């Protein structure tokens, strides 16, 4: 079942992108295969219940949104340490070609769905992060601005045995000349080696003409940890998937999510964990606020496989509604094939507590300020999970901005 053909796309387009970037042959192959996969690939699965489609991706006009040859971004990368490699792919092929080839697409199949295939066929920006064995770095940052109609980004993180790294990425809209709708696609794959520890924070604050598709997936070796922080504030429509496959015994993953929707923003937030080995642990925590006519859709999946003995898996999702016209859909799912499991999930939707408001007002705090304080407070349990000060400050600031 083909989605929709983008007429302006051809093998020629893909070859031009690869040529300009002077890419190795295998990557051109990968891109061309992805392009060919568009014929048969489906859009990402979207929850549908009787009479309600939670997110309508089919309504996106990719023909108008995708402009592959005019992609433009301004990206600033800092490594904070010489021992770690933080480079755009084009600068990394010479020295790290083998590592890239061995890992690219191994965690996240380029042909996973229509949007991943499109992204791999056309990406022009992104980052390669390589953390050699035993290296420990904390300050890898990638700050990007999007300056074109469409932008496709691809990130690969390879963390070798017993390494540790904290990576923060952010994306904003730059001062571009482009009017109208824009499309940002962001794929991230993380391969965490034995006993490696990767924390990956992502902050999306694009302007409200943008559509965002983001799929981030990590795979853990034994005793490895992959922790995600996924913050979405911008874009008219965001589809975000964060996933970890716990493949190694004793590995762990945490997915922390925040979102804050105003006006007619639509967030489709997904967090998924596959427990595939023994003694694995997962913790999913998402908190979001909705104002005006914003809408959120949340799906959380904890999938415990047959071989996942002694699993612990937890999931919480809370949505706070500030406006009567906002809408929140949620579906936290448990799929359990091993009985040696402790798993729980919970989801709530509610509004600012009237008694709390009354208490603050009785202390002569104005209603607006009181409400804002309570919203800030609502995010605290999630902010506390963010170990990186810089990132926490950014998120807090964006929350405050939205409350003004």
């Amino acid at each position, binding site marked *: 079942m083909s989605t929709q053909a983008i007429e302006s796309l051809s093998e020629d387009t893909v070859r031009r992108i690869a040529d300009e970037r002077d890419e190795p042959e295998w990557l051109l192959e990968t891109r061309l295969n992805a392009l060919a996969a568009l014929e048969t690939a489906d859009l990402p699965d979207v929850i549908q219940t009787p009479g*309600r489609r939670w997110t309508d991706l089919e309504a996106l006009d990719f023909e108008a949104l995708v402009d592959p040859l005019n992609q433009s971004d301004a990206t600033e990368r800092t490594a904070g340490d010489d021992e770690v490699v933080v480079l755009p792919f084009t600068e990394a092929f010479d020295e790290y070609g083998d590592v890239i080839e061995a890992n690219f697409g191994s965690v996240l199949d380029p042909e996973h769905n229509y949007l991943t295939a499109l992204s791999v066929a056309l990406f022009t920006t992104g980052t390669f992060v390589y953390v050699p064995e035993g290296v420990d770095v904390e300050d890898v940052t990638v700050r990007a601005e999007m300056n074109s109609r469409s932008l496709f980004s691809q990130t690969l993180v390879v963390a070798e045995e017993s390494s540790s790294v904290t990576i923060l990425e952010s994306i904003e809209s730059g001062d571009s000349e482009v009017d109208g709708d824009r499309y940002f696609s962001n794929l991230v794959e993380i391969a965490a080696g034995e006993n490696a520890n990767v924390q990956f924070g992502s902050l999306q604050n694009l302007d409200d003409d943008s559509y965002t598709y983001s799929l981030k997936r990590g795979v853990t070796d034994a005793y490895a940890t992959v922790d995600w922080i996924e913050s979405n504030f911008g874009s008219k429509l965001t589809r975000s998937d964060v996933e970890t496959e716990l493949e190694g015994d004793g590995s762990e993953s945490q997915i922390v999510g925040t979102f804050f929707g105003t006006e007619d923003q639509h967030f489709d937030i997904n967090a998924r964990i596959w427990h595939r080995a023994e003694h694995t642990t997962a913790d999913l925590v998402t908190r979001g606020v909705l104002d005006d006519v914003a809408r959120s859709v949340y799906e959380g999946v904890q999938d415990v496989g047959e071989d996942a003995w002694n699993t612990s898996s937890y999931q919480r999702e809370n949505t706070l509604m500030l406006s009567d016209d*906002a*809408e929140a859909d949620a579906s936290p799912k448990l799929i359990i094939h091993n009985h040696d499991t*402790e798993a729980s999930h919970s*989801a709530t939707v509610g509004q600012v507590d009237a008694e709390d408001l009354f208490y603050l007002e009785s202390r002569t705090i104005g209603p607006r300020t009181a409400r804002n304080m309570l919203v800030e407070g609502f995010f605290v349990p999630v902010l506390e999970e963010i170990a990186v000060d810089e990132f926490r400050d950014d998120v807090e600031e964006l929350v405050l901005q939205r409350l003004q």
Partner: protein
Amino acid sequence: MSSQQDDLKETDTEARFEFKKEEKSAFQTEKGLTEETVRVISEDKDEPEWMLERRLRALEQFQEMPMPTDWPGQPDLSEVDVDEIIPYIRPDVDVRAGVDDWTELPDNIKDTFDKLGIPEAEKNALSGVGAQYESEVVYQNMQERWEEKGVVFCNMDEAVQEHEELVREHFMTKCVPPSDNKFAALHGAIWSGGSFVYVPENTTVDMPVQAYFRMNSEGMGQFEHTLIIAEEGSEVHYIEGCSAPKYSKFNLHCGGVEVFVDEDAHVQYSTVQNWSKNTYNLNTKRAIAEKGGRMEWISGSMGSKATMLYPSTILKGRGASDNHITIAFAGEGQDIDTGAKVYHNAPDTKSTVESKSIAKDGGRTNYRGLVHIADGAENSSTAVECDALMFDNESTSDTMPYMEINESKVDVAHEATVGKIGDEDIFYLQSRGLDDDDAKQMIVSGFIEPITEELPIEYAVELNRLVELEMEGSLG
């Protein structure tokens, strides 16, 4: 009271469910489903023209709708071939609308229900009993004092004749239209038998009304329709039980239940389902609750090969409330996909869902539920709680809740836990001299107790007995 309890405990439940009778039917439609089949069913029942039209329209919808296959993780229905089942078998009884006295029944049918323990239960506790053998209701009785108050409890086929206006207004129109899903359409085309309950204004039926359904033939389909109308301020508790012996082919149970809860009325609907493990149990059950009305669904799903059942309530009037309590127990080869659906369409509505599931010996349970709060349903609250217990590593336990919240002034909470039977708990009980099996049984009984305590005593006893049988693995 206590002697009755003892009586029920004494009854050998296993024998009650396993025996089967030699088939001997007066009438059997050809295998398969055509317009002709539908016409024959309708004509044989001497139905008014409008009912035939509804059946034919439903048949058309059934044929147009595709088989549902795209639900995530749904049970495999590929074996369900409607042409293979015999949709309508009327047992060999002369009295079409049922008999009023138990002794008038033919011996083999009477024997069947005797073994199930129905007449004893009726004598002692219940205000009315309807028993359905294959497609027809063969026995129906209502204690006189309820009849005097205008309470109606009769066979659905009889209701079409005797209470035509009420049935015409409510039958598969507002509550469960045949277009709801493929199996509701199938049901609409070939429904047969079932119960009709009418409770007039401000009348409280203080003893439960009970129906028992049983399939005895191989390759059988049962399609009973239950319609309950509870007028303003009334109260009634309806109980249905289902069973079938085992055969090599598959059986299909495709019932329809519609409940109308008028202002401030209160209806409780309890089911203990123990179909044989070749039965596909694909039902559509729905209630509409008006202002201040209260609906309660209590279901125990023990039997069947595959169950897809999501009793639903539409909270239509201000202050209406809904309460779901479900237990699912899946053993070897069973896929019990069940849950609850609640639509909050008015302010101040409340719902609670409490689900307990147990998976064992490779069985699969899934809680699949939907709570929808419409825009404008202010001050609504809903709480969903699902707990699952797993015995071994071959079993699967899934939880798939969906929440759709279009209103801000609400209180929505969903919670679920999955765990295994605690080794420490078992060790503790064993240290008190219980063996391993007894210890596990006791833990399971404790796990489902919040639900059994909501059931009338004889059903709680039966449910507990069924759980014990499942635990022993003797109902394989």
